């Protein structure tokens, strides 16, 4: 494949981002010739070619990332964790009982803080090349292909600065019984930190797996920022099912760009759920590619914003194949001076007959200064399809509030109930009871905190 590209975005990648790659390279010593480092280099080069976006670019029209780009970050080497760090990680893991968990510290896979009991899947560190394996080779091919095909600068940036990509390989026909938690732990040491975890999931034919991805930071009070730039690549083979939930409740001055690309083979199911509650700027780039028929794709999201938070969900689903079904539903509550963006594109190509696609975005604005820009896009080129899409932006209904108060609930209880009820349909799509409870608890906490 020809990897030369016309720059997509006009803003040059600032020098302090380029020097991050150099500093990573300089501490690698003998590892520079290893396969993955070649991929990092490729990511770094492609990033420089593609450039960074500005609000003049259509897909970043409502989301200015200057704050993210202007900050000086360092890419920490392995940090030492103290007892309290480890305690915080274990406690987070315990919130969702009966799970395996995989911990990442500042983006780096940390086996000593992980707990893997199932033999139905394998976890492989891709930077560690002491052992050759077919799986690794396959992974590298995939990653290279991603880099060549993607014009998303944050996927390139992720690969360029990823210290240790992790492959999670679900064996053919295995139904992984316990959900797997992916816990991202960030520890800053007085300077702002950039973390670029890359997680590469392959669910082999007829396998099943359920993930819960969360973020955790210490100390809670700090002036330095975290910029988490994640990339999840998920391959769902024939008849397989991958369910992925994420909860993002980073600090109110942190930044997160979460890139996720999934591809689905015949009869497969992919479910993505995101709850975005924290961080100053959140950008989710979710892309799903359908490779064969009779797939089911679910994309659910909820967001709660307050203060000056900015939450941007971009989704792209390409129906290129007939007989596939998709459901997409994003709901959010925005207060303070927060701002939300939803841009969901569903493409139904000419060949994709018998497509069943549903898309919806609803937002509740609970303050006069909150703002939502919603752009549900459904492009249909096939004629025998069942598709619907829509968006609503509304305010608190005073009739409902009065009804609730007339039953003795105070202003705050009534408001909370209305907001929770508003988000309910998205909650209810979460099948696993424990995971639903973990999500509900953190969402309710966040709804309490936002000001109207």
């Amino acid at each position, binding site marked *: 494949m020809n990897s030369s590209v016309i720059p997509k975005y006009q803003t040059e990648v600032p020098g302090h981002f380029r020097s991050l790659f150099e500093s990573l390279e300089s501490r690698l010593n003998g590892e520079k010739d290893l396969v993955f480092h070649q991929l990092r280099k490729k990511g770094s080069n492609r990033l420089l070619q593609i450039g960074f976006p500005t609000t003049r670019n259509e897909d970043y029209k409502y989301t200015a990332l200057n704050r993210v780009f202007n900050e000086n970050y360092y890419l920490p080497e392995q940090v030492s964790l103290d007892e309290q760090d480890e305690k915080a990680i274990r406690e987070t893991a315990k919130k969702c009982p009966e799970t395996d968990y995989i911990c990442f510290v500042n983006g780096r896979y940390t086996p000593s803080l992980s707990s893997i009991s199932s033999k139905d899947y394998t976890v492989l560190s891709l930077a560690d090349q002491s052992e050759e394996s077919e799986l690794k080779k396959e992974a590298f091919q995939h990653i290279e292909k991603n880099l060549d095909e993607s014009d998303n600068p944050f996927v390139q940036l992720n690969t360029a600065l990823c210290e240790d990509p992790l492959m999670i390989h679900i064996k053919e026909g295995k139904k992984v019984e316990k959900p797997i938690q992916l816990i991202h732990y960030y520890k800053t040491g007085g300077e702002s930190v950039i973390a670029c975890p890359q997680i590469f999931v392959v669910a082999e034919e007829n396998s099943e797996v359920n993930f819960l991805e969360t973020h955790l930071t210490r100390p809670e009070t700090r002036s330095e920022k975290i910029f988490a730039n994640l990339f999840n690549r998920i391959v769902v083979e024939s008849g397989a099912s991958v369910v992925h939930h994420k909860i993002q409740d980073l600090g109110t001055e942190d930044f997160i760009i979460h890139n996720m690309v999934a591809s689905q083979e015949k009869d497969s199911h992919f479910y993505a759920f995101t709850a975005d509650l924290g961080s100053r700027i959140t950008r989710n780039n979710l892309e799903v590619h359908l490779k064969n028929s009779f797939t089911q794709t679910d994309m659910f999201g909820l967001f709660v914003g307050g203060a000056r938070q900015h939450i941007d969900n971009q989704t792209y689903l390409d129906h290129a194949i007939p007989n596939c079904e998709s459901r997409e539903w994003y709901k959010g509550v925005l207060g303070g001076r927060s701002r939300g963006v939803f841009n969901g594109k569903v493409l139904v190509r000419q060949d994709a007959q018998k497509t069943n696609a549903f898309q919806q975005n609803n937002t509740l604005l609970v303050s006069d200064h909150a703002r939502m820009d919603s752009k549900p896009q459904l492009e249909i080129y096939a004629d025998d399809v069942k598709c619907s899409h829509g968006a609503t932006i509304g305010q608190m209904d005073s*009739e409902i509030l009065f*009804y609730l*108060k*007339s039953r*003795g609930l105070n*202003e705050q*209880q009534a408001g909370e109930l209305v907001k*929770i009820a508003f988000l309910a*349909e998205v909650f209810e799509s979460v099948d696993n009871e424990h995971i639903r409870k973990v999500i509900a608890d953190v969402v309710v906490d966040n709804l309490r905190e936002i000001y109207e």
Partner: protein
Amino acid sequence: MLKIKDLRASVEDTEILKGVNLEIKPGEVHAIMGPNGSGKSTLGFVLAGKDDYEVTGGTIEFKGQDLLELDPDERAREGVFLGFQYPVEIPGVSNSNFLKMIVNSMRKARGEKELDSLEMLKLLKEKLATLGMNINMLKRSLNDGFSGGEKKRNEILQMAVLEPTLAILDETDSGLDIDALKVVADGVNSMRSEDRGFLIITHYQRLLNYIVPDVVHVLVDGKIVKSGDKNLALELEDKGYDWIKENKAAQPA
């Protein structure tokens, strides 16, 4: 327990209540009847504290305190209940969770111990049985997709669990078939007690065959123009509201 004196209320600068006087003593059931647009529902909303209505004059005393000083939720906690003519639908809130929430927040406000899940289930089952209602109703979302009759029965269920001192029922009979009407009436009758008062707002006399009132008032153009016993309702049914209006016009100023 409720003393309304010369109550005047407006909505968007239009005066709707033009000096209402009414007193309800504990244990009494009062019915307010009147033609459409006479201000019946406004009276209910003003008592419950809806802020779309501006009280421009008069007083409301409830259990010795100034009701107009209290917010809607405070009034509810003091024991005022309004059964809505059009109960709102809230998808996403399960009926059982909602009932639990309002019962416990009420108990908490009254300094009583909150009920645990088992105690709550026992209470709800007991009330459902009294009202001849199906337990499946609890699993559904609050009023979401309920038929008119189901919504009204649900209002009565809420009233039953909240055990108010003053229950105002705003056209609870409208849109009900005869069976649903009996359920609602039985619910109300089962709750009649010597320390509880009822204000039944209705357009038709029909409901008063089942809930026999102590006093019937006729509200016309924002004023109570006639009060009497249960026979007044029958007379109205017979002669229509025009009879009262004509009577009123004939009265010397």
